[in-house]
């Protein structure tokens, strides 16, 4: 049996963890740059606030309704998510972190009463982390996703739904459109509709071999899974991470090379810090810059840089990232996004040293450690390369940022003793 545990309105719920005064109140979270609404608490949804709407359009309404507004605080969300995932690992032998707010668990040889077990998980995550979760349990991952959806929609289930018999999952499948199936996008959904497949149950009853010829092998697996036979394996985590990306949209769209290079240096510094945190180094990096897709001539430039040797030194990585930006840069355009990815990551412990190639100077390791320590203690951006620029005009707009309650000393919650 599989379970999918999903944090309810994850980002909005994270904002409520250290703000008991905001629990049961409408809360929304805005995307990078305070552009769009990306998360809504249950109460905000009830007010009819739509998802992914531009914030400025709803400003007046939100104020009038007394909705609490937050800029996305990924430092906080990352830490809360990590706490949820760490706690969930106690409940299953195998786990798969599917996204920042979803985790698959696989139960083999565990208690028969999985409904009670699901409730136990839900209550534990609330008690320990103050994150509300929904739990869907079923014989396949696709059905567990579906069970989770039902757990959220049907209030009498109290957040836990067990679909352990064909009768139960068919009841749900008959009531939901085929686009609600895990892995079926809106385009496939439309094509299925023209074939007369509208509900999930229609798809579950379709001939798998025939559908495989029409579409691909994935849809055959989906059909098998919808009928209660697991066909998609758990992707248990490959630690440490194989790729690290740091990408941002600009608050103030720059058009000059200098701004792009300073921002790329800053993203590289952030990515390199994550790289060192997991004791790895990288042999290649990918750099990209792109104009707004609404621009007349959209431009998206990307380049992979193979480094002469694997490194975790911010200075070396930043140097090459800047060279790449220089090559990618086209004048007379405004840039909307830029990012860097560390893509050929290996552990520092098992490094293959090429005798004829140099490596980082041992003093570089000491310097990087010091840099990380300073930034950890005094907050990101306390110590940085001059290459990152002094002004940081491209910094995101984050007018409603909450404190980093769990990751920064100055930000830990205050308790009023009176």
């Amino acid at each position: 049996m599989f379970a999918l545990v999903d944090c309810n309105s994850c980002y909005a719920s994270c904002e409520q963890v250290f703000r008991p005064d905001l629990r049961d109140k409408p809360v929304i979270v805005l995307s990078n740059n305070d552009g769009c609404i990306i998360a809504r608490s249950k109460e905000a949804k009830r007010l009819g606030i739509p998802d992914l709407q531009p914030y400025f359009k709803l400003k007046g309404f939100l104020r009038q309704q007394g909705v609490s507004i937050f800029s996305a605080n990924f430092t906080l969300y990352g830490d809360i998510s990590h706490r949820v995932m760490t706690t969930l690992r106690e409940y299953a032998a195998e786990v798969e972190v599917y996204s920042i707010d979803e985790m698959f668990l696989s139960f083999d040889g565990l208690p028969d009463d999985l409904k009670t077990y699901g409730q136990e998980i839900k209550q534990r995550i609330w008690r320990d982390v103050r994150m509300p979760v929904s739990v869907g349990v079923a014989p396949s991952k696709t059905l567990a996703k579906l069970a989770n959806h039902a757990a959220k929609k049907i209030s009498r289930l109290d957040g836990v739904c067990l679909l352990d018999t064909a009768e139960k999952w068919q009841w749900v499948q008959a009531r939901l459109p085929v686009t609600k199936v895990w892995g079926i996008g809106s385009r496939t959904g439309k094509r299925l509709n023209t074939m007369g497949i509208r509900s999930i149950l229609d798809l579950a009853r379709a001939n798998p071999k025939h559908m495989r010829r029409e579409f691909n092998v994935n849809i055959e697996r989906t059909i098998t899974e919808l009928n209660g036979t697991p066909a998609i394996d758990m992707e248990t985590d490959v630690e440490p991470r194989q790729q690290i990306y740091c990408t941002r949209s600009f608050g103030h769209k720059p058009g000059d090379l200098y701004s792009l290079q300073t921002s790329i240096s800053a993203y590289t510094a952030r990515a390199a810090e994550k790289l060192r945190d997991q004791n790895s180094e990288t042999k290649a990096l990918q750099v990209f810059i792109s104009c707004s897709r609404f621009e007349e001539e959209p431009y998206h430039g990307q380049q992979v840089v193979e480094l002469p040797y694997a490194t975790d030194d911010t200075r070396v990585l930043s140097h090459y990232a800047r060279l790449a930006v220089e090559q990618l840069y086209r004048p007379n355009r405004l840039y909307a996004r830029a990012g860097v990815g560390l893509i050929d990551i290996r552990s520092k412990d098992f490094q293959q040293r090429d005798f004829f190639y140099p490596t980082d100077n041992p003093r570089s390791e000491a310097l990087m450690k010091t840099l990380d320590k300073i930034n950890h203690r005094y907050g990101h951006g306390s110590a940085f390369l001059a290459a990152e620029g002094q002004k940081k005009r491209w910094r995101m707009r984050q007018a409603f940022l909450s404190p980093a309650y769990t990751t920064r000393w100055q930000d830990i919650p205050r308790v009023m003793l009176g």
Partner: protein
Amino acid sequence: MKVIKLPKFAHAVQAGFPSAADDFIEAQLDLNEHLIEHPSATYLARAQGSSMKDQGIFNNDTLIVDRAREAEHGDIVVAALDGELTCKILDKQRRLLLPANNAMRPVPIGDNSELIIEGVVIHSIRHHIRQDRKQRSKTNRQTT
């Protein structure tokens, strides 16, 4: 994907033998391990005010708060009383939140007010030097 060719590096290879002392090094004492039993359920908070002074909790002390521990009668807890975070001694029998300061009164947990325990204070840390002074001396050490 486009790939840029880069020049080889010129500086020397650093080599060396591992130190024989490596085998005898024990891990350093870890305060996290000493003070925190349930890392995922524990958070730090800053105490503000003087109502807990007789329990040795003073203004600006750091509190270590564990949500996984069941709050028992007599525990020092962080509680949300009508939405505000406070720190008091939990008196389950008389339904009171007790301050540890004679100048202050117990707070009754009314039948209509909502009390939610936000964790048990398992340790508090008293800082015997001013925080800004501590940071200054650390910075000095790093630059020398």
